């Protein structure tokens, strides 16, 4: 009984890390550009698909990194299109690009699920066997979040990004190129999405339309922090992953997405009740 619980916790945290990475990609883009990027899930699919191809010729580590780099470039390209218009219109642009990505993905990789080997083997945790790859996911995600926090609060570029998020008009006043910072945010979003895809695929096959599950859960995690707080997004993603693992373990795995949606709606209603006038501050 206890061993089951430990197993669910670890797999839940692993899955949750994927959601948290997707969610933090949404946050990185939204904070700087005010664009809700519906192509965020597609970055993960592109990363995963690329890794599945690259790993047939490249060794582990390099293949995954190359896939993340491709996802970052895709992020930049989406940003180039999305930052030419208002944040509201950009939302539709990203949605359109996410659907367009289906076509490209099916054309290049087909419509069948793909996967590749992750960290082999299994480890024992409280008498239960868990795929070692789950620990790798957690072991990569947490340092990535720590590095992101350092980047945004300690480095010049990170502070300039935070400045754009805090007050875009003032950022322009002091000569920060806000559009370039937006493109950088999209690139970071692409890399984070790609990383999520690369990390999660060995334990969960990916298909061209896996982005829906990823973005719904990633969005649910991000909305907990009002789409602006990476740390809360991490906690939200982990909670979501663990809850889903517990529901799947003790109940019915078919209800996973409903939980994410339910949580998301509950949070949004709660936020609306608590602060009805909360809207974006005028620039």
């Amino acid at each position, binding site marked *: 009984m206890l061993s089951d619980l430990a197993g669910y916790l670890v797999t839940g945290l692993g899955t949750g890390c994927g959601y948290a990475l997707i969610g933090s990609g949404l946050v990185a883009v939204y904070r700087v550009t005010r664009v809700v990027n519906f192509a965020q899930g597609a970055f993960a699919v592109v990363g995963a698909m690329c890794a599945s191809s690259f790993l047939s010729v490249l060794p582990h580590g390099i293949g995954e990194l190359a896939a993340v780099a491709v996802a970052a470039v895709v992020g930049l390209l989406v940003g180039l299109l999305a930052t030419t218009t208002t944040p509201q219109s950009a939302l539709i642009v990203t949605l359109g690009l996410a659907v367009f990505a289906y076509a490209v993905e099916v054309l290049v990789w087909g419509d069948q699920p793909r996967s590749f080997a992750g960290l082999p083997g299994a480890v024992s945790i409280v008498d239960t066997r868990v795929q070692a790859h789950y620990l790798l996911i957690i072991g990569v995600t947490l340092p990535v979040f720590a590095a992101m926090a350092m980047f945004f609060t300690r480095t*010049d570029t990170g*502070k*300039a990004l*935070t*400045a754009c*998020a*805090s*007050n875009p*008009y*003032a*950022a*322009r*006043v*002091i*000569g*920060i190129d806000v559009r370039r910072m937006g493109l950088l945010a999209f690139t970071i979003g692409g890399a984070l999405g790609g990383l999520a895809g690369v990390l999660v695929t060995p334990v969960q096959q990916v298909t061209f339309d896996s982005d829906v599950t990823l973005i719904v859960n990633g969005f649910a995690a991000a909305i907990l922090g009002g789409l602006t707080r990476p740390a809360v997004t991490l906690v939200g993603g982990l909670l979501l992953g663990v809850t889903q693992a517990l529901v799947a373990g003790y109940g019915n795995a078919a209800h996973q997405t409903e939980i994410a949606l339910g949580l998301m709606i509950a949070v949004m209603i709660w936020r609306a009740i608590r602060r009805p006038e909360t809207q974006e501050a005028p620039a």
Partner: protein
Amino acid sequence: MIEVKDLVVRYGPATALDEVSLHVDDGEMVALIGPNGAGKSTLVNTLSGILKPAAGSVSVRGRLAHVPEGRQVFGDLTVEDNLRLGGRRYRQRDTGPVHAILPRLAELRHRRAGTLSGGEQQMVAVGRALMSRPDVLAIDELSLGLAPLVVADLVTHLRELNEQQGLAVLLIEQNARLALDLCARAYVLEAGRIVAEGPSDELARDDRLAAAYLGGVVADAE
């Protein structure tokens, strides 16, 4: 230092500035006064390159720093980070010289700018602008929403900067009396056009201007 010639700025079909010409010389303090919606902020935003002229020309010799209307500090960042961002073009970003001019900012350095009072935020905005080591400072509404004592303090600092470091200032003000007291020369902007210009004391004696701007200020002060 600043040379604006026949400047026209439009927002879509609306003309915000219509053939505006003005200049600010080295080390000079010049006021730009006028009612709400006259186009004062549009002019500064054009000077700092945020808006593009539809016609005419804007030239700034040396470095212009812009203190925007409503202070516009980075509320999520500390005072120190706000200042450093102002000096981001330089490798050397010592905030010491700005602390020497505005000592209060040294005390507040670790506070988040969003938690400060209006006067303190205005100091942050001025300090952030000074960090770019400007030759000319364009200040959009120095006194708006600030207590008179706070304004007096800021004005003292500005005078010092002007006298000791030769910093030129283009001061945009709703409080015309304050602006005319501080600056030797002034322009009056109404509905996108310069309607009067000259030495401040002459403008202050102009009956029509006094009725339009200086009368209102007395009422404001009470």
